[in-house]
């Protein structure tokens, strides 16, 4: 059995060179912080939009439109959709179908005063029913057929003039904010809702943007979609609501993910260089000790393991510090324009166990790459040379 150098010896070596250890670990901590923050951001965007869709909802848009603002569905087409089999009904026998106009409204942000696009959705009692995650937290629901609107929590908090009781001017009318709703951190938090028919009149539009349908059961989707696809009057695309919103998160999440990860990898070169310098220094200043260890009977492997262990421990310290700093980001809410919809999307940084594990592994990877060559060199030293050098 090969005797290993005790862990306490390794740890103490790091402590003796506190300043160097601290500086190297700080560099790594910053890289891990960037790495973890980016992953938390992409996860935040994904989970926000995935939480927006309901499994048994289906959304219908004009063929090829991709996003609600590009889409248009005529009243005739919407009427046909309502009669399709496989659509759930409420206790009074009305089909659970919400025909909705969507328009973007340019409003100034509270933080910067600069305008950004907010999604304004015309909906109805049924529309609210189809989105069970939405609850009114302040004020009340808008009255059908009125110029009243309700604002999502992120809009009410993040934009000027959208708080409870405020008046929004657009489409030649004044719209009163009578309620603020919470949509359980889904995309609807970044929307303003108004009465569908009133919004259509104000915009002088003849067509809906999208039609949201509650399926009689989750498996009815394929049958309903096939009917829509085969009906020549309906040049429409039907999608599961969950998939529709997941797709909307893709381009922004991918963009941030790719950009951020490549940055973290480039930055990690700096941190790896730091670790290598530190470990070379550590080896150089302990040549005598290495010789003594070897003379005491520790094998080359044990010396290699000891120095590699030191590098890994160093990087773990950096990783943990960086991760702790990133944990603090969970309290931060970000709002930016989603390219896919051209409108604001508010989301939180989200830390998952997977991201924590990935970040620590990334840190350990830096430690390994940075520490291997110095550890290798330490293990290759001859006992005689070491002792002579000392």
């Amino acid at each position: 059995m090969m005797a290993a150098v005790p862990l306490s010896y390794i740890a103490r070596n790091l402590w003796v060179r506190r300043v160097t250890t601290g500086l190297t670990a700080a560099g790594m901590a910053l890289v891990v912080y960037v790495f973890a923050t980016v992953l938390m951001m992409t996860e935040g965007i994904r989970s926000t939009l995935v939480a927006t869709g309901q499994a048994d909802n289906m959304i219908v848009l004009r063929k090829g439109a991709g996003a609600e603002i590009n889409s248009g569905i005529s009243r005739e087409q919407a009427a046909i959709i309502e009669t399709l089999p496989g659509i759930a009904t409420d206790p009074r026998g009305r089909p659970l179908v919400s025909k909705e106009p969507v328009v973007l409204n340019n409003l100034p942000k509270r933080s910067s005063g600069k305008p950004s696009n907010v999604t304004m959705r015309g909906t109805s009692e049924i529309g609210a029913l189809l989105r069970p995650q939405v609850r009114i937290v302040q004020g009340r629901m808008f009255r059908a057929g009125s110029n009243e609107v309700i604002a999502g929590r992120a809009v009410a908090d993040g934009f000027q003039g959208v708080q409870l009781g405020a008046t929004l001017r657009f489409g030649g009318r004044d719209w009163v904010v009578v309620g603020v709703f919470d949509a359980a951190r889904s995309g609807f938090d970044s929307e303003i809702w108004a009465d569908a028919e009133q919004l259509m009149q104000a915009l002088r539009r003849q067509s809906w943007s999208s039609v949201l349908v509650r399926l009689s059961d989750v498996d009815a989707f394929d049958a309903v979609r096939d009917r829509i696809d085969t009906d020549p009057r309906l040049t429409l695309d039907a999608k599961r609501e969950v998939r529709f919103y997941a797709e909307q998160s893709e381009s922004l999440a991918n963009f941030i993910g790719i950009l951020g990860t490549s940055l973290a990898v480039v930055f990690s070169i700096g941190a790896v260089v730091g670790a290598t310098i530190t470990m070379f220094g550590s080896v150089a200043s302990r040549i005598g000790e290495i010789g003594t260890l070897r003379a005491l009977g520790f094998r080359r492997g044990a010396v290699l393991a000891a120095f590699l262990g030191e590098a890994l421990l160093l990087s773990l310290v950096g990783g943990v510090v960086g991760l702790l700093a990133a944990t603090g980001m969970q309290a931060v809410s970000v709002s930016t324009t989603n390219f896919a919809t051209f409108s604001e999307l508010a989301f939180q940084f989200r830390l998952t166990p997977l991201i924590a594990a990935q970040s620590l592994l990334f840190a350990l990877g830096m430690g390994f790459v940075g520490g291997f060559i110095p550890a290798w060199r330490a293990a290759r030293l001859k006992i005689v040379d070491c002792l002579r050098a000392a």
Partner: protein
Amino acid sequence: MFIFRLLLKNAFRHPLRTLLTIVGLVVAVVAFGMLRTIVDAWYAGAEASSSTRLITRSATSLTVPLPLAYAERLRAVDGVDGISWSNWFGGVYVSERNFFPQFAVDPQSYLPLYPEFVVKADDRVAWERDRKGVIVGRKLADKFGWQVGDQIPLRGTIYPGTWSFTLRGIYDGADAGTDTNQMLMHWAYLNETMRARSGRRADQVGVFIVGIRDPNNAALVSQRIDAQFRNSLAETLTETEKAFQLGFVAMSEAILVALQAVSFIVIVIIMAVMANTMTMTARERLAEYATLKALGFPPEFVVRLLFGESLFIALLGGVLGLLLTLPLAALFAGATGTLFPVFRVSGATMGLQLAVALVVGAVAAAWPAWKMSRINIVNGLRHVA
């Protein structure tokens, strides 16, 4: 001279360590430069804007169209020189990954307002004659290898269906800041097709481009225009082209702020690495510095030695990084294709790169220099044994 030779010798006493430090510096300086260039590229549209152009759009948002009939009323506004209009086509060429902007415009009135789009006279006539014709910028044509006469199919997202256009000309930019990543098509063709399909979506305009004679009148003319249409069915919002473009930049402000923050993080990372190098160096040379002091050199000499060495290494890394940034930026611009219409490393960025390297060098030497200037000669010499 003597001190410089000493610096040089000192700097390369641990060639591997110095080399590694320089590698780290180069990476950081390049990353910093690239990040700044990416942020600059975001602002390219605003930088290239003309002060004699105003953009009039719906007060609600850019996605709400205005009636074409406004054109005549805009022309009559005092101070207005020329009027044109454009619609965002938003088509997909083969796949979503090939994104580039496409505008449906009125060629006769649009091109005079955009003198930076340089089109050969023959190409321009050919485009104006062919209603299904388009012109594209040089960068875009190069990316997809398009030749004049090629058919370009686009899948409509806003305007449904598959559209096929014929390439009639390629425009060049009057200067390097011009966006040559756009496609321009005939607004009239789009309009007629939409009228034939469903009369409701005809005669609608995305934005009006308003040419003004005197840039100083921009605010006044904007107010006049918006006053014209106040309380109408479609209220307008008029701003300078620069403000309009900055509006787009502001939409992704969160990402830009993050990029800027991150470009400073990389500097802090390398500062830590470099400070570590200098601390280790100083610690090893404790005895030497004590000897120098014993020989009668003042503490400032040791300080100068450390700062000199640190700044020398930092400058070397900074210059190498600067030299590497240019070819890398060219590679990056090639790889991202049309994502950034204009991607140039600015003079300010290069200056900042060097400045940042020097700051890193100075900060890294500060702590060890302070400590070494205060060493006790006896303790320092004892350290040898």
